[in-house]
């Protein structure tokens, strides 16, 4: 055992000197545990592009990617593979909020920076760089309340009950609607972030409540809900939140929908990567990442699309495939501004 650990120590020593010798080269591991949507693919592609952009600044940022449909133990294996490989930082879109505490502790012990994005994690050994899902939920609700002048019946179509991001978003819109006594939430249903189920749910809601004025609906389900609204011939009578894929933005523009979309940009991982590089350089954040329920979050701005900037969003998506999402990310300069 002693010989083995001596061997391991010498290997670690060599690795250490190697990384000191080339301080401007960083290797960052990206882990994604679910490949069921184009959004995740775009997230990884944008992060890879962000890493490549560092070349101009004289830095070499290599990314290694593990992306597959895995369960929680499978994603823990991702992290362990990165530790074995000796990456400098790990950026993860985690499959569980709490299950990574032990393995992140091991990563930190190995001197690796861990950043989660898109979903917050409870580990004190990691930070979160991404949007505040509660604020995301609230932003769409504010738009809806304003558009309806604070009056009218509203329904909500949510994602997966019990999913942490869903619960935060629900808490977000509820807190806003509570401040508007004229807004009455008549029903809240779950359609599991599935476009077809969103469409079905909207049909049922329209049949049950013919007089609804507003719909608060998340992500891709919005395209389904709007389909039902159009089929019912109520396009002009209902205001509903929208989503950010090109297909929907095009429909929105051509049909003149009364919609507003809170953006959860796939660029969050690219933002996290730019933050990670500055942290690896040893720079300190002006404001330490202490937000959120776990006290380790740094929240990014949440863009919003409504009629005032719809044309701009459409222009960004010009020539992209229909499933491509409107995006935004911290540029290298934006990220640098966050550091001392």
């Amino acid at each position, binding site marked *: 055992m002693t010989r083995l650990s001596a061997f391991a120590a010498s290997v670690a020593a060599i690795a250490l000197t190697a990384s000191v010798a080339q301080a401007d080269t960083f290797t960052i591991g990206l882990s994604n545990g679910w490949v069921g949507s184009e959004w995740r693919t775009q997230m990884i592609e944008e992060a890879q592009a962000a890493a490549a952009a560092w070349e101009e600044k004289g830095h070499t940022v290599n990314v290694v990617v593990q992306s597959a449909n895995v369960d929680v133990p499978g994603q823990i294996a991702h992290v362990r593979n990165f530790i074995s490989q000796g990456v400098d930082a790990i950026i993860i879109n985690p499959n569980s909020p709490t299950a990574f505490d032990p393995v992140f502790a*091991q990563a930190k012990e190995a001197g690796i920076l861990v950043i989660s994005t898109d979903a917050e994690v409870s580990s004190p050994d990691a930070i979160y760089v991404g949007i505040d899902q509660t604020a995301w939920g609230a932003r769409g609700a504010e738009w809806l309340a304003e558009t309806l002048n604070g009056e009218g019946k509203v329904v909500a179509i949510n994602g997966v009950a019990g999913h942490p991001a869903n619960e935060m978003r629900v808490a977000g819109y509820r807190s806003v609607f509570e401040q508007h006594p004229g807004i009455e939430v008549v029903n809240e249903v779950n359609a599991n972030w599935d476009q077809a189920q969103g469409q079905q749910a909207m049909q049922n809601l329209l049949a049950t409540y013919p007089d609804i004025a507003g719909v608060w609906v998340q992500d891709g389900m919005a395209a389904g809900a709007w389909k039902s609204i159009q089929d019912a011939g109520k396009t002009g009578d209902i205001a509903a939140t929208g989503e950010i894929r090109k297909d929907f933005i095009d429909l929105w523009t051509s049909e003149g929908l009364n919609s507003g979309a809170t953006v959860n940009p796939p660029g969050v991982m690219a933002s996290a990567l730019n933050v990670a590089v500055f942290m690896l350089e040893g720079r300190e954040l002006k404001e330490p990442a202490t937000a959120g329920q776990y006290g380790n979050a740094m929240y990014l701005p949440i863009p919003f699309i409504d009629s005032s900037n719809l044309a701009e969003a459409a222009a960004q998506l010009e020539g992209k495939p229909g499933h491509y999402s409107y995006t935004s990310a911290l540029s290298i300069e934006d990220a640098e501004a966050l550091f001392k």
Partner: protein
Amino acid sequence: MTSLSPTADRNPFAAALERLPFLPALLILVVLVVLNGWFEPNSLSYRAITGLVSTYLALMMLAIAQTYVVMAGDIDLSVGATLSLVNVVVIVLMERWGGGGGMVLLACFVGILTGLACGLINGLVVAALRLQAIVATFATSIFFTGVALYVLPVAGTPAPAAFWRTYGGRILEIPFVFWVVAALALLLVLLVRTRLTLQLLAVGDDAQGAFQSGLPVAAIRIKGYVLCGLFAALAALCITGDTASGDPLVGGKMTLYSVAAVVLGGSALSGGKGTVVGSLVGALIIGLINSLVFFVGTPSEWQNLVQGLAILIALMAGVFVGRRVGQ
């Protein structure tokens, strides 16, 4: 196991294979270890091997669980759900009772009882009610998942730090998981020497014959399922140690991996042929394939595809080696 086979005196390799049907799997394991070390030398470091064992100990346990029913020609598609249920039961009890040492042990004990109960239910449904194992255990898996969701509706709820720090920590400078492996080896050696293993294989080989020679076939199959439940519960304790939290769906995807590990380890799904050591090796093969796919630098969009292909290749290699040596 079936030492009466006439092939025993044909050649020494065939004889060895007859006694130790997991040899081809062991060979594949060695090849995978070498390949992993070739593409990522750090993957053979002490820390990386400790990590590999911590990650795949649960799958090893689950593969062993599956082996005890597969030996008798049965199958258990509810091992993953059993694992999830035990995981949430243990987590919820540890939270209710506080994180004290005695209470943590008691919660683990209740977890093991839960696993045994799941195994007993499966055994009764399959062997006493005589429902087809594959569908009956599929149904009980949905039932167990339902119970797990009732116990803990949302993934989360942290385990007491003492619990996961023990699992990820060291005792006398040796990682805790290695102690578990040693205890497991001892337990397996003891179990192999019991009559039950032989009886399960006899039932799997020829249930009718076993019945006619006076073996209590139904009781033996039920015991196999109970043993399966026990090891699924142990797997759940490993998962709980490695993830430090509860998740009512954590084991769902592990069921078929456990079946794959059993087959990779040289057991026949038709029963009558199988070793727990083989299944243990099979689980490690799956783990090493997953790491290798990454270490060779497979682009992310191909990782699932390559992983599936690699498991198929390992399966074919096992059959090929087995046939070659067996001739």
